[in-house]
């Protein structure tokens, strides 16, 4: 079968190659998905560039990407929650990475039936960004009337998070650049802050939750805008101690500056490392079918133009997700 593979760390055009590879074989708990569409995310670019080789080292060659939608064509002996012919979507686990290919084998635990009211391309755009937003906001227990600040509302995670928070009845502040203000408003955000013209710290006060999708100074600044006892959840900031333990760093301590801010605001700080989860994708399926969440696609590329899709991702200017139509 044809697959887009990473042959070395480095520049996108030099590192991605179409190869003819063996169709994956499945284990007892796996399903084999005939891929209809795959989507790419910033993490896919970071892996190719080698920026994550310490955390997520990959063998060469490796087929690229995690997000997929398609049809189950084979299932392992122990899979009893899916049938051959089911239309599904998934964010595949690290060890099964490789969705820009004609077939991918995935543990059934990471798979869900796709929403019935959207296309394969739209379904492929949802898993990674959707799971990141859902797992972050669900962890802090977002609820009706919570005031939440979501950074980078036009990004893949941010645009999903806005819709998810609104579906839960929260009041949503979000930040974006001038050109995206109207677009982000249309997603349902209550107040859109144009970071090129306004300082969000003077506008957002006493937030219950800050969803930090930017890191760096934004993580510490979050403590300025939350109320006493507020919650900060980050997907890019420093690890918290519990997450560090999961990565085997038993002696890790939260950076001192951050720890002081947590104490001063009697706040909670949590780092979320998105994990593949079919049940969570099932929740997203229901929300999409009820139109509480709409997939947002910037552009769909044909399989043969996958490298161009990565070049577009690298510009950082995509509004919504970049999808590759495989079959």
């Amino acid at each position, binding site marked *: 079968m044809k697959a887009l593979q990473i042959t070395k760390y480095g520049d996108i055009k030099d590192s991605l190659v179409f190869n003819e590879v063996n169709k994956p074989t499945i284990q007892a708990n796996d399903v084999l998905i005939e891929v209809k569409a795959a989507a790419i995310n910033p993490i896919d670019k970071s892996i190719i560039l080698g920026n994550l080789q310490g955390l997520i080292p990959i063998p060469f060659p490796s087929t690229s990407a995690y997000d997929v939608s398609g049809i189950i064509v084979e299932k392992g002996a122990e899979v009893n929650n899916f049938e051959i*012919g089911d239309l599904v979507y998934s964010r595949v686990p690290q060890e099964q990475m490789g969705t820009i290919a004609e077939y991918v084998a995935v543990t059934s635990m990471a798979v869900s039936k796709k929403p*019935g009211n959207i296309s394969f391309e739209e379904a492929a755009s949802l898993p990674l960004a959707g799971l990141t937003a859902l797992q972050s906001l669900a962890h802090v227990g977002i609820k009706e009337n919570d005031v939440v600040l979501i950074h980078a509302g036009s990004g893949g995670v941010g645009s999903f998070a806005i819709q998810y928070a609104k579906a839960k009845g929260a009041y949503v502040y979000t930040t974006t650049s001038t050109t995206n203000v109207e677009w982000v408003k249309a997603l349902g955000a209550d107040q859109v802050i144009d970071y090129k013209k306004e300082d969000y710290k003077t506008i957002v006060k006493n937030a219950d939750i800050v969803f930090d999708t930017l890191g760096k100074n934004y993580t510490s600044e979050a403590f300025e805008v939350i109320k006493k006892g507020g919650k900060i959840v980050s997907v890019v900031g420093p690890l918290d101690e519990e997450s560090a333990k999961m990565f085997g760093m038993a002696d890790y301590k939260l950076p001192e500056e951050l720890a002081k801010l947590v104490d001063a605001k009697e706040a909670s700080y949590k780092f979320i490392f998105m994990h593949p989860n079919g049940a969570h994708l099932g929740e997203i399926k229901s929300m999409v079918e009820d139109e509480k969440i709409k997939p947002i696609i910037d552009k769909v590329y044909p399989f043969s133009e996958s490298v161009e899709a990565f070049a577009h991702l690298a510009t950082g200017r995509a509004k919504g997700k970049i999808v590759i139509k495989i079959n």
Partner: protein
Amino acid sequence: MKELIKKIKSDQNLSQGAEAYLFSISKEKTFSKGEVLIRQGENVNKIYFVTDGCIRSYCIDKNGKEHTLQFAIKNWWISDYIAIHNDESATLTVECLKESSVIEFNAKELNKMFALFPEYEYFQRKLLERHVVSLHKRILNQLQLTASERYDLFLKQYPDIEQHARNYHIASYLGITQESLSRIRVEKSKK
């Protein structure tokens, strides 16, 4: 099964032999919510008479989107007649929207009824006529009524369906977007 026999007998006499044959080729079954009776792309040779519940048939287009063809509630028949008539793999998926009880028939055995018991042919012809009438009405409604009028008729036909069907099931049955369905509902709630 008794209800189905009663229904047939309300149209015409059914011999004891025909009644016995109907019993012999049918199975009463109960399916839970979400269970798939016929799956698009697979072989199909079953026809279902619904005694309780709610079942939906739909096709999945090449982009992966579902389009609802029919909802079947108590006393309705449901299957993939295109596949059975043309002897080809299923073009539809038939799925339970809630726990549903059915009488399941093998299509070929049911067809033998015509040769074995001519009186059954009358019932079958009446059934087919009703089916054609229902399809013609659906096409004409689609051509000449507004979406709001079609929705009103739909609710008359399926009074409790909104408890079981998702919005997109209903929107795709009516041939409108989910946004349009939501708008129609809001307008009706204001009246």
